[in-house]
């Protein structure tokens, strides 16, 4: 059996767990724990190791979705998670501009880990304070040839579209057979 993986990264509370939860066919293997530091005011629990979801294509092919830990002290995991990935999704909380700089740093960091394709998912577009994807593109200084996609991580259809867009990018990057 062949297994392939896509990494879902993003700043703390960007919606990575919800993103994977919306599409995974299994209950995600998540290690949510009560937060004990200042981040508690934003979110009651956070991912301390990683989220892990699965989409079975057939008996021979399985796609795994890995969410990176939300807090910086677990950033040693990022490089390990990025090993062998097909591509990655950078999830951004569009309604919290205070996290944009961190999101930009994450894009740079994962690009250094791997030359694989990526997309930016402008999450929480259903929030009234959400910045539109085209404004996020400028704020994050995303290159014109990269996709910045509208996303609502709790909506399966929206998550599907983000993954499909990433897979199209991956397909474009592969040589013709």
């Amino acid at each position, binding site marked *: 059996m062949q297994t392939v993986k896509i990494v879902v990264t993003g700043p703390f509370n960007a919606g990575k767990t919800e993103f994977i939860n919306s*599409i995974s066919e299994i209950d995600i293997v998540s290690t949510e724990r009560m937060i004990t530091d200042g981040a508690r005011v934003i979110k009651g629990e956070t991912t301390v190791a990683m989220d892990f979801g699965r989409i079975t294509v057939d008996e021979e092919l399985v*796609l795994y979705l890995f969410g990176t830990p939300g807090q910086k002290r677990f950033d040693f995991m990022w490089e390990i998670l990025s090993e062998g*990935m*097909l591509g990655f999704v950078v999830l951004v909380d569009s309604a919290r501009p205070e996290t944009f700089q961190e999101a930009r740093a994450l894009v740079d960091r994962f690009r*250094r*880990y*791997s030359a694989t394709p990526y997309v930016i998912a402008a999450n929480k577009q259903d929030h009234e304070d959400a910045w539109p994807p085209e404004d996020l593109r*400028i704020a994050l200084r995303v290159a014109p040839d990269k996709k910045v996609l509208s996303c609502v991580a709790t909506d399966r259809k929206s998550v599907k579209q983000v993954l499909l867009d990433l897979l199209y990018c991956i*397909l474009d990057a592969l040589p013709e057979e």
Partner: protein
Amino acid sequence: MALKGNLRDFNITQLLNLINLARKTGALTIGGKGKQAKMYFKDGKLVCAFMDGQDVGLSGMLQKAGKISEEQSRTIRSRSETGTDKELGLLLINAGYVTQDDIVQSIRSHTLNVVYLTFAWTEGAFHFEPNRLPAEGAITVPISLENIIMEGSRRVKEYEMLRNELPGLDRALKFSERPDANVRDIKLSVEEWRVISFINPRNTIKQIAQANSMNDFQIRKIVYGLLSAGLVEFAVPDVAEKRPALPRGVGVPAPVKRGVILRLIDRIRRM
């Protein structure tokens, strides 16, 4: 959709850059240092700006600029029926006190002063209301944001902010490939020209600094200004060169065939 945030997270340079690149029309309200500034934009250009305690109207601006006397100002205001700047402007020109150019220059100078003051604000809530235009009767003078961003960036003294924006100097730059980048009207200082002359995807920012005998702060300030004005952008890191530095196996894409990706696409489409 209104844009809201705090300058602490998204500073004035970034905001103006966003408005410029997205060619936005609307009103930006910023609260900082106990004051509030309001700027109006049309198609990505600044058209007028006001600040609490500094909104002196057209006659006040011209008086401040030494174009009219206090008495002339009083006389014109007494003749005005609506009190709008447009009416005052016409009365002033008709009275022969000022020329149209005097008015344009004074408003331009006032607008720029307001905006440059906000560059010193590192904290404060902001709110952008799309399509909100200045009040009827206000005189608007369209000013390109590129040079404001450059000049404002020159005035940004906070080294820490620059460090956050450009944490590492080992990246290379290239000239912007954005088709909408308006570089024709940008005015560069001698120091900026020196940096520009070394822009090349093969030169890291650190190397450019060394070649020009600039310290970290100087080079960060200049590069930040050039990036914000859209003149340059980061060159895509050369992954092939980076790979040897990474642990074995990391960064190497999984050996997949197109057929695998097509099967994944098909599966997700059917979900």
